[in-house]
């Protein structure tokens, strides 16, 4: 089958998944979660007031309509209004997207490139002390919780040594740079561990394959073997891994944004969680889920393009 047929079939599968996701979101946020009218009005609200609020929030409509609203929002991105700020959520998203991206995009690019370079070195000098120490370093990096990095980074690097801004944000380039530098660095430190481990595994898997032995028997140098033969094969799983991380850039790192005062989508989400602002939390969930679904389709299709074994059946 060719690419187009595959893409269409893959997209068709998105529909049941999307409906399922909206169902789960509906169950979680509309059905079993605590009654917001109680939360908003307090314990002494009268039944009448509660009914009014419930009507205002659209909670007295049929389940199906509420569910259908969620499904619609996945396509129209119209999520209603925030309960706490009364803002239109779509507008909030538009405002918050840019700051999130100023942190996540450079961090993502940097960590991917650095991890790739490190893993190439590891593949070249495999088996020796260098390899072992990289593995140990990755494992050690991954054993420290994110919060600890943030707290440590903020306290020592920003506060004590004054190398970076402690928190806050300014829009516009290059004004935001001193504010996003530290969160970027922490993000890179957080992702390097798992990234290098994965790339290293992929590279080493390829290096021990039979075709590498054949390439050596042909008289090729180790450089050519690594950068031409191994890399092209290793790129297949690596590309899919990288692409599937892209939807997570949108949410930004919740913790990082919150601690560093970055007014991005992550920070919005966290505030909403803390204030039980369901529409916002629900909207962010729908947004992330849709992004994830879309990118998994892209990943699958990309895979068929990049891997000749899958492409031509």
């Amino acid at each position: 089958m060719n690419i187009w047929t595959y893409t269409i079939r893959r997209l068709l599968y998105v529909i049941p998944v999307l409906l399922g996701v909206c169902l789960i979101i509906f169950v979680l946020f509309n059905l079993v979660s605590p009654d917001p009218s109680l939360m908003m009005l307090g314990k002494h609200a009268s039944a009448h007031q509660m009914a009014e609020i419930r009507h205002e929030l659209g909670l007295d409509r049929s389940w199906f309509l509420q569910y259908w609203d969620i499904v619609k929002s996945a396509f129209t991105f119209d999520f209603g209004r925030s309960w706490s700020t009364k803002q239109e959520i779509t507008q909030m998203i538009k405002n918050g997207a840019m700051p999130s991206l100023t942190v996540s995009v450079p961090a993502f690019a940097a960590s991917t490139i650095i991890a790739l370079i490190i893993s190439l070195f590891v593949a070249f000098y495999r088996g020796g002390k260098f390899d072992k120490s990289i593995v140990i370093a990755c494992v050690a990096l991954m054993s420290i919780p994110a919060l600890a990095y943030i707290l440590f980074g903020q306290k020592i690097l920003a506060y004590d040594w004054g190398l970076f801004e402690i928190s806050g944000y300014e829009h516009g380039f290059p004004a935001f740079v001193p504010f996003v530098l530290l969160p970027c660095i922490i993000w890179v430190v957080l992702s390097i561990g798992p990234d290098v481990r994965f790339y290293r595994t992929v590279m080493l898997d390829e290096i021990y394959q039979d075709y590498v032995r054949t390439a050596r028997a042909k008289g090729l140098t180790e450089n050519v073997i690594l950068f031409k033969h191994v890399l092209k094969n290793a790129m297949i799983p690596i590309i899919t891994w990288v692409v599937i991380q892209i939807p997570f850039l949108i949410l930004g790192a919740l913790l990082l944004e919150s601690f560093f005062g970055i007014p991005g989508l992550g920070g919005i989400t966290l505030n909403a969680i803390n204030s039980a602002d369901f529409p916002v939390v629900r909207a962010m969930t729908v947004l992330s889920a849709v992004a994830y679904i879309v990118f998994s389709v892209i990943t699958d299709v990309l895979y068929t393009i990049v891997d000749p074994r899958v492409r031509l059946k």
Partner: protein
Amino acid sequence: MGAVTIAEAGRIKEAEQKSKSLWRHAFESLMRDKYAVMSIGIICIYVIIAILTYTGVIASDWNLEVGPSYAIPSWDNIFGTDIFGHSVLSKTLKGAEVAISVGFVTTLISVVIGVFFGALAGYYGGKVDEIIVWFYTTFSSIPYIMLLVAITFILGKGLVAIYLALGLTSWVSLCRVIRGEVIRHKDREYVQAAYSIGGGHFRRLFKHILPNVMHLVIINASLTFQTAIKSEVILSYLGLGVQGRPSWGTMIDDAKLELARGVWWQLAAATFAMFLVVLAFNILGDALRDALDPKLKGK
């Protein structure tokens, strides 16, 4: 299917022996790796500490004022004290309880659910498989943190809520892996041979296929355990953490206010305690993968 041939019975025996010798072989090569042995040792120490603090044998003074508020680490209080004058050392030790129990229960929940659905999907195929795959695909499309938050909203606060929330969000990857392996094994000769002897579905699944996928469960379990411990920190930060007992997560979370006042010892103690045990699980997980995964090429 007629009488079983000697060859078929032999093959079943061989397959069973192979899985036994895989464990033997894995055990031996694991014991040879000194880092793996150290990690097992560290984990055991943590478990013992958790049991000891649970029974009150040690660190029973975690609740008592043993010194002035925010005392710097000294010979009296090796890790200093917190805002209430409680010994940070005792709190750190007591925190092992929460960590170990969270890790253990979470892993248990995710293993049970993951293996159940994975085996079912892989074994029966068809509609059952489609439904289960659809289910976990939708489940995993929802960002982890949102799911955690939503579940803890519903279940309220407390340890049980944490167990369930973490357990319910970590079964998908194991489910996928088990499903794949069961599918691979389903068509293997030894299973068909078992069928010809007259083994029913249940018997085949439990006696023959599952033992051969257990190694994946173990490898995955070590990963789940440490992820659970790290996730507890995030839950604490979101205010959904453990109440009434010290946990490393709450200690680290408290640090966000303390650091400004120059109080670093609670953060350091909790981070270090967590670092050691998570590191141990990481190393153990890697060693287990090297020992148990038969597909590994010679290195």
